[in-house]
Structure formats: C-alpha cells, structure tokens
C-alpha cells in the first residue's frame, strides 16, 4: 500500500517511483487478504484497474444493447410474428411482442448504447487507462474521484436494469424522453416508474461523467511528464482533453433538465407541461410550461454528447493509423484545431435536431448555417487521415483494419449529415430511417469500430498478451460486412420516408413494400451480433493464453509503450522524459523506423529537421 499513500505530486518528475516497488499491487499475490483483494480489484484507485472495470462493464452492456437491437429489428422485419427464444416472455400475447414492449425496446436500446456503452467506454475505459500512461504520469490527479466515477455507474446500472422489471416496464418515450409523453405518468405504459428510474439513472451517469471529466482535465494539464508539452500530446489525449471540456460545460444543463423533468413527474412543477393538456382523458400537469424547452435543454447537452461519443475514437484512430502506416500524422496541428473547432461549434448546433419541432423557423436558419460549418473540421480531419496513409508502409493488422474502416465509414456518416443539415430536405427525412442510418454510421460504424481498433491495439498493454490476429481479422471482416448490410440500406428506407420507431409500418400504402428489405437488414444485424462471439472468445482466450507481448509490440512511439505490459501500480519503472512529438516514424537516416518520445535525441532527427527547413 506504500505507493497508494504516497502523495500524488503535481509534478511526477520530482517523485520517481522505485522501479522494484510499484508492482506489488497489480500482480496477484498467492495469499491475499480480502481487504487487499477489494482495494486492488474492486475499490481500486489505480487508473488502469478502473479503466478495465469500465471496459468490462461497458462490454457487458454492449451485449445487452445489441440484443435489444436484435429484438427491435425482429419486430421491424416480421411484425407481430412469434419471437424466437424470447417468445416465452410474451406468453400473454401469444409469443408476439406488444407495441408498448417495442417502444420500450428502442428506447432502452438507445439509452443503453449511449449512456452505458459509448460514453463510458470512450471516456471511462480508454480515457482512464490511457491518459496517465500516454502523458507519463503515475496515476490520475484525483484517484479517489476516479474510483467514484466508476462506482457512480453502478446506481445507473441498477436504475436502468431494474426498470425493466417494474410495473409498466422500462422507459418507453424514446431516449430523448420528450415531454409530455415522458412527464405525464399516464401517457404510456413505460411512463410510470420506468421513466422515473430512467431519469435517476441518467443523473448518475452524469455524475460519473462529471467526476471523470474534472479529473481528466486536471491530470492532462498538471501531470504531464517532463518535456511533454501540449503540442507533443498524442491525438488520443487531445481528444480526451477536449471531450472532458465538452462534458464539463454541457452536462450541468442535462442534469438540471433531468431534475426539472423529475419534479414535473413527482411534484407537478409543470416546467414542460402546457396549459390544459389532456392525456388519456385526464387533465395533466399544472400548465404554464413548454414542451419545447426540454428539447432545447436536452439537445444542448446531447448534441455536444454526439462529439463526446466520437472525438476520443477519432483521437485513437489517428494514433493507430500512424503506427501502422509507419508515418507521421499528416497535419498534427490542423488535427488538434479541428477537434477544438468541432467542440466549439458543437455547442451552437443543437437546434438542428429541432428544425420541425415548432421552433421559430428563422432560428432554424441560424442553426442550419452553424451545422453546415461543422462539416468543415470533419472534412479537414478526413483529408488528414488520408494524407497520413499516403506514402506510408501500411501493415494490415486487425487494429489497423478497424482504424481504416473508421475513416471509410465516417466519410459516409459525415456526408449523410449534410442532407439533414439542409433544412428543407430535413422536412422530409426527419424522423425517418435516413437519420437512423446517419447516426449508426457515426456511432456504430465510426465509434464502435474505433473502439475495437483501440481494444486490439492496446490489449497488449492492458493484459500483457496479444490478441489473435487471424480471428481478429475474421471478426473484422464479418462485422464490417454485416454492418454495411444493416445500415447502408437504411438510407434507402429513409428516402422512401420510412419512419423510425413504428412497431409496424406496413399497413401504410407508402411503406407496405419495404418488408423484404427490412428482413434483409435484420438478417445482417443477426449476423453482426453473432460475429461478436468470435471477438468474445478471442478476447478472453487471449487474456489468459495469448502470446506474451513485450513492452512495445507495435514499435509505436507514445509513452505507454515504454511501460511494462501490463504496467504495475505507478505505471513507469523509470522517469519518462519526452524529447519529441508522438509521431516520429520513418525518420530518414535513422536505423529503426520509429523514434519513441523517450528516445534520446538522434542525429538523424536534426538532419531531417534541417532538410525540412532548407
């Protein structure tokens, strides 16, 4: 415990760890007391353990969210037909799912994926694991806060999890939880206890994110290793830093809005209830409120949250692309500035979710212009990724394939966004499958693929072993193929105007011929979820049986690869000193094709720099 009680000095340079001492925490001892076990693996303050706790928890929820998605797809493809396997749960409906069950499914699919998977896996798992390692710190600035940020997820897991089993079922008002459907307790089966639990869960996720965000900002600002200037930070850390700023500024609004909705529901404050509202033949709410107010507050957080859900993946992908293209990142500073640009503009585009909400159409125009402009930094990033691959020596590892697919898929997701940014087009495609296609390309084909890239890439650092490359590529091929089969076709559904969230749309003349296409998409979705078995087996098998990885299995440059794999408590067994940026690959005249950030100055560098300036 000596290293835990040791004060976390603001400058780790002054407090180097004894290289022999730090490992007593991470290595399981043969005889371990219960309290040591609890403090090492359960209530640990070590950022790596917390990161892995986030990783395992979010992967479990990823599975749950994926199964919820399959149930949604089942109903969309074959409405009112008996549900296989799970059909016994719906015995009272003769094995089919009820429409209120379907609305609950898509609500909880989105809720689980956004609040329990994507946000915590990026910031919680990767942010926690990577930030201290990549900046050369021994841990986070506030280890206790860090531990709490994980344990505040558990009340959220509990509230969301238990809400499936309360009367009326889990929340069923859509993940956006628009009032009055969500504020009135009689408006839908899921708007009873389920919705209250949903709001409590959301608040807990918010508390967790806020604790993490404060910690990340402080750590990155104060605890960088000597020589690690801000513009020597890897893109992953830049992305995590800017994400943390986004979280810190946007979250309070959502938390406040969540409490307003909670008090609307519990004590009738009526922030969001209009005058004289009659729901289910009963007067509802105190009146004097405005449903659109919720939408403004909700999207003021949830639009920046879209960037919270992709920026860290962009950062990780930038690092992975450079490693396996053996080439410096193309346009490091423009990449940093464009992340900052996305984050800044991200605060003034929330209204594009509300073009047809009844918001003043003139206000819609200003949001439209801002939204068009946010395509710009995204384009700059894409071009720079292409520039990074250009002229490289590409090694097709699994991590690289996932990273390249992130770029390829983000192009689709980015371009489809332009359609809905155009306000007149949005009139037609709003709330259709075009939108569903768009955000799945950004969040699944983008972020989730980036997350897999990150898992394959940093797995050796996390567990000291390498994942199996062959099965990794099988996993990649199946996921990539099936995801495009599932999501690309959604654009076509959207062009027909096929609306989201309908339990059965085939009784409409406009949509009755779309069932075969939907069935195809559902088969692809089933394939996509099934292929994750390959990943799961590879993940757990490699954790215990994979080939032992060295400190730097990919010959990468950043600081985490100088630490042991897995790093012991305190991370580094020497004091890292940084001499250069993170992307010095293939320096001409250098005997190896990479120069780690800690490698002492190399004569070839000076020559290359002189040649560049000549």
């Amino acid at each position, binding site marked *: 415990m000596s290293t835990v009680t040791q004060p976390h000095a603001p400058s780790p340079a002054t407090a180097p760890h004894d290289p022999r001492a730090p490992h007593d925490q991470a290595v399981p001892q043969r005889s371990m007391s219960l309290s040591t076990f609890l403090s090492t693996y359960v209530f640990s303050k070590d950022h790596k353990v917390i990161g892995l706790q986030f990783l395992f928890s979010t992967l479990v929820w990823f599975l749950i969210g994926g199964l919820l998605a399959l149930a949604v797809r089942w109903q969309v493809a074959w409405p009112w037909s008996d549900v296989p396997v799970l059909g016994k749960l719906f015995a009272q409906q003769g094995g089919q799912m009820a*429409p*209120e069950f379907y609305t609950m499914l898509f609500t909880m699919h989105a809720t689980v994926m956004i609040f329990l998977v994507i946000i915590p896996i990026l910031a919680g798992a990767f942010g926690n694991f990577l930030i201290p390692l990549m900046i050369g710190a021994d841990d986070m600035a506030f280890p206790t806060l860090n531990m709490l940020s994980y344990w505040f997820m558990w009340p959220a897991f509990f509230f969301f999890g238990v809400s499936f089993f309360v009367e009326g079922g889990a929340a069923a008002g859509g993940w956006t939880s628009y009032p*009055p*459907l969500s504020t009135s307790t009689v408006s839908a089966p899921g708007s009873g206890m389920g919705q209250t639990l949903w709001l409590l869960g959301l608040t807990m996720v918010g508390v967790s994110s806020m604790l993490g965000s404060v910690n990340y900002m402080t750590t990155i600002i104060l605890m960088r290793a000597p020589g690690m200037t801000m513009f020597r930070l890897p893109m992953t850390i830049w992305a995590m830093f800017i994400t943390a700023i986004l979280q810190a500024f946007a979250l309070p609004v959502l938390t406040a809005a969540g409490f307003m909705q909670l008090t609307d529901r519990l004590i009738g404050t009526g922030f969001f209830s209009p*005058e004289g*509202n*009659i*729901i289910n033949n009963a007067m509802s709410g105190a009146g004097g409120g405005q*449903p*659109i107010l919720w939408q403004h507050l909700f999207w003021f957080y949830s639009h920046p949250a879209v960037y919270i859900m992709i920026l860290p993946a962009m950062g990780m992908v930038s690092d992975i692309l450079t490693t*396996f293209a*053996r080439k*410096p*990142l193309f*346009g*490091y500073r*423009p990449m940093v500035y464009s992340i900052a640009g996305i984050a800044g503009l991200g605060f003034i585009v929330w209204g594009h979710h509300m073009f*047809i909400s*009844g918001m003043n159409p003139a206000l819609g125009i200003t949001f*439209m212009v801002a939204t068009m*402009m946010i395509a*710009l930094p995204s*384009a*700059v990033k*894409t*071009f720079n990724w292409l*520039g990074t*691959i*250009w*002229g490289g*020596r*590409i*090694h097709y*590892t699994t991590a690289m394939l996932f990273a390249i697919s992130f770029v*390829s898929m983000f192009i689709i997701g980015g*371009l489809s966004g332009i359609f809905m940014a*155009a*306000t*007149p*087009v949005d009139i037609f495609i*709003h*709330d259709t499958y075009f939108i569903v296609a768009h955000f799945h390309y950004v969040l699944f084909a983008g972020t989730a693929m980036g997350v897999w890239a990150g898992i394959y890439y940093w797995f050796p650092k996390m567990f*000291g072993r390498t994942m199996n*490359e062959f099965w990794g590529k099988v996993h990649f091929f199946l996921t990539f193929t099936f995801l495009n089969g599932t999501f*690309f076709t959604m654009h076509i559904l959207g062009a*027909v*105007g096929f*609306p989201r969230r309908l339990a059965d749309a085939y009784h*409409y003349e*406009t949509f009755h011929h*779309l069932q075969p296409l939907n069935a195809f998409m559902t088969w692809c979705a089933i394939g996509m979820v099934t292929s994750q078995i390959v990943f799961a087996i590879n993940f757990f098998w490699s954790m215990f049986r994979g080939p032992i990885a*060295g*400190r730097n*299995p*990919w010959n990468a440059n950043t600081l985490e*690869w100088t630490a042991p794999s897995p790093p012991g408590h305190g991370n580094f067994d020497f004091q890292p000193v940084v001499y250069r940026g993170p992307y010095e690959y*293939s320096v*001409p005249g250098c005997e190896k*094709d990479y120069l780690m950030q800690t490698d002492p100055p190399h004569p070839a560098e000076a020559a290359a720099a002189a040649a*560049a300036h000549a």
Partner: protein
Amino acid sequence: MDQDKRDRDAGSGGNPPGDSWVNGLPQGRRWSGIAWSLLFLLVPVLGTATFVIAPYYNHWFPKDVSVHGRSIDDLFYFILVLTGVIFLATELILFWFMWKYDAAASSKPATYIHGSHALEVVWTIIPAATMLFLAIYQMNTWADIKMRRPRMSPSAEVVARQFEWRIRYPGRDETLGTPDDLFIVNDLHVPVDEDFLIQLKSMDVLHSFFLPNLRMKQDAVPGMKQPVWFKATETGTYDIVCAEVCGWGHYKMKGRVTIESRADFDRWLARIEAEQKATQRGPDEIPIAAAD
C-alpha cells in the same frame, strides 16, 4: 517482472526475431493487402450501386404531389450528387492508398512528412465555400415552405391525439371555432391546385404530422398552434403518418389525405355537413377537440 527486464534488455520492444519481421512489425503478405484494399473498394462500388438500383425497385421517394416538394427533391438530388462525388473520390483514394502503400508491396521507406500548409489551406477553403454556398442556396426554399405563410384564414384544423388525427373544417362561415364547424377523424380532404393552410395542434403529447407525398412534416406541440401549408398538384389518396413517438399506439396513428378537384371537395364537404346535421347535438356538447 523478469519478462519486462528481458524486453528492456532486448531493446527491440520484445518482439521475437525472425525473417518475417521487417522493421520490427510483422510483414504481411501482398495478397492480403490486395484483399483488404478490394474489400474497401466494395464500399464505394456497392454504395453507389445501391443508390442507383433502389429507384428501379420502387425503393425511392414516394410520388411527389405538391408544389414545394419539387424543390425539396431537387435539393436532395443536388446534395446527393455533391456528396456522392466526395464519397467516391475519398473512398477511391482510400482504396488506392491501401493498395499502393501496402508494406508488402515495396521496400521503400515511408515518406517522412508532417503535413502541408498549402494542402490544409486548400482543403479548408474549398469545403468551407461549398458548405456556405449550400447554406445560402437552400434558405429560400426553407422560407417558402416554413416562413412565407399564405395570407388566408386556416382551411382546416388538425388536432393530434393519442392515436388519431381530429380534423375540423370551418364550415360555411369559413371561421374555425364556430358552431357550424365540421368534424371528421383521420380523413383529410384537400382541394387540388389551391393553397391549403392547416392549423396544427395537439391535445396530449407530441406528434408529428407527416405527409410523405406532400413532402410535409411538422411536429404538433400541445399548447402551440402550428401553421402548415402546401399546394397539392395531383388528385389521389395518400398516407398521413405520425412521425414523432407518441406512445404505444404510435404505429397505428394513421390518417388519409384525399386530394380532389374543387367540385369534389365541395360535394364531400356538403355530405359531411348533412351527416353531421342529422346527428347534431347542442352547442354545449361540442366534442372535446372543439375546445380551444
């Protein structure tokens, strides 16, 4: 921790030495680089094919029967071509780079370059100008559809409610909210070639009044009166869809809009009026939708 020490001493990142390890990283086989680049080539090929083929199987826009729908569709096509070109260009470049710069394809070292100021300027300014053009180009269409309301009193009122569309026509006095109003559910009739102005309301929760064939969508918000207007160009009967989740019955909140000639429309109104008079109740028993 002996393993770590060995790694450090080896100084090569701990990788096993061997012929296949060039520059410390596993040297892939050329065919695998080719295979992976071809997989990524399928993205632009199949992606474009999907959009080209879909209309031939009737998987495309529903028939447009409105005046403003044309400008929405044209704008969609304009953006489709614009983004399609960028999509093809970037995805093909990605494929080409993957094919050409495969480490197994040549022994040339990677180019040591950190970026290009000129390129950054070019690929910042061109998209910026394009997006700004697009933003300005569409404003007029938006203003026509959602801001320049025709100067007329509402032709009808639509009140959304879980899970039906309650429709009210102003009757002979052409004023909503008077005793001669005509009431009907889920069956909107509209005269062709005339401006039609709907006053959209909701009784309970959010709904969205979606007319796919008229390219019109507007959320119905309780406590607000939304104006919705359009001019139909062809007769026929089409769907009214609810596009904002409104509860368990959201999927079945279906209405129909019938576009017909002025004469047919007047005949239909007269028939509704006669039916309603035959079952008329006192003014104090006006159905709930009539209460403002």
